């Protein structure tokens, strides 16, 4: 049997064995491996893409955060400023009001004092007039002997008047 003559028995077994091996590997072997490698490639690509997107988002978030922070600072400054203004205004207004109120009270007081003074003066005048009228009445009515008696009488009358006016 020469080297170059294929042996039919071996040929037969080779066809059978290679057929089985081919079937097994082509169905359950290589496609699985290649599919998994492709899947892994797709997964890596996706992961890279996702990472890139996440990075971009992160940068966005950072910028946004800074923006918000700046805004907040601005707002804070504004609020503080307006608060100071309000405070100053309130104080000023209060002072003004207090001053006005004081002035008003003072005026009223003065007016009252004036009126009271006037009424007191009026009262005194009336009393004096009444007293004078009474004294004159008494003087006219009584005959006066001497100066001493006159004086006594006048003082007595005045006392009476004072007592009666009480």
């Amino acid at each position: 049997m020469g080297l170059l003559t294929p042996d039919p028995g071996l040929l037969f077994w080779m066809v059978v064995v290679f057929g089985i091996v081919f079937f097994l590997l082509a169905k359950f072997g290589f496609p699985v491996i290649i599919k998994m490698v492709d899947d892994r490639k797709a997964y890596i690509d996706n992961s890279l893409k996702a990472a890139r997107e996440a990075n971009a988002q992160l940068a966005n978030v950072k910028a946004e955060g800074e923006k918000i922070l700046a805004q907040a600072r601005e707002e804070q400054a504004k609020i503080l400023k307006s608060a100071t203004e309000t405070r100053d205004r309130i104080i000023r207004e209060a002072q003004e009001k207090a001053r006005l109120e004081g002035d008003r009270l003072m005026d009223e007081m003065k007016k009252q004092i004036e009126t009271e003074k006037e009424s007191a003066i009026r009262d005194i005048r009336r009393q004096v007039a009444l007293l004078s009228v009474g004294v004159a009445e008494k003087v006219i009515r009584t005959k006066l002997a001497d100066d001493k008696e006159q004086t006594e009488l006048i003082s007595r009358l005045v006392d009476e008047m004072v007592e009666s006016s009480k």
Partner: protein
Amino acid sequence: MKKVRYIWTLVLLMVFTSGFASAGASHEDGEVDVNELVFGHINDAYSWHIVSIGDAHITIPLPVIVKSSTGWHVFSSEKLEEGEYEGLYISEGGAYDGKIVERNAAGEEVRPLDISITKNVLALMINSAILVWIVLGCARWYKKHPVENGAPKGGVGMIESVVLMVYNDVIKACIGPDYQRYAPYLLTAFFFILVNNLMGLIPFFPGGANVTGNIAITLVLALVTFFFTNAFATKEYWKEVFWPEVPVWLKAPIPMMPVIEFFGLFTKPFALMIRLFANIMAGHAAILSLLAIIFITVKIGPLINGTMTFVSVAFGVFMTALEVLVAFIQAYVFTMLSAVFIGLSRVKEEKKE
């Protein structure tokens, strides 16, 4: 230091195994029959001879399955060692040397239908089982590990990188579009040849059989490539075969070019078959011949024998290392050429200006 020790172990191993191998081929008078030694290994056998120590032969008997003129015979190859069994015997010399034959009515030797599990068939089965185990083992790894866990490491990673090398650099590059249809066959062919080549280089059971160095094996592989090349060929491909673009007189009355192209269809797979067979067979023969030098020079004297032993072992190591390389290269070349042939059969009509 460690490396040196490895090399010495290898050398000793080779000396011993070759010693055992030669013992089987030595005759009573001490002569070494190199021809028998080398071809006894390269050719197929009905039993698997492992070692002979003195007169004790350690062989694995294999089943003989034969359909002769008297019907089916299934028995162990041990029965044939004593001579004829059930009218069958192993022929010596003649057209059917080393094969099981029977005598017909005229007394001539004829071969019955013989599908025995010979050494090569058993080695083929073992190697195929190893191949299936490796690849399906890898595939199982992928089923157990989801994509998110990342790429495999170690053995699975190694197989994966080889698969990808063949897939991307050979199959995708040589075939072009529609490469997916051919990928399973080409990958199977590559790993089948690679595993069988490498197993053939292991000098003891279950390796050491000359499987891919047997023409029946390479014939089947080449036929499958032939099938895949022509079964899905494009119209343009057939047009180029039977009506190529050459001056009309080259194809009109006498179809010279078509005939040449038509034969080209068969020479391509034929070249594949011969290349693989011849490379592997020659590799086995070269290693064995180099080691046989040791036993040929025994008669000349201890000095020359010692020197030649050293030379032979050194060359043996070199050849074995070379054969490891060849094992890979031949698998690669077979796959690549198959891919190229398939790629040629996928030609699309070029747009004419």
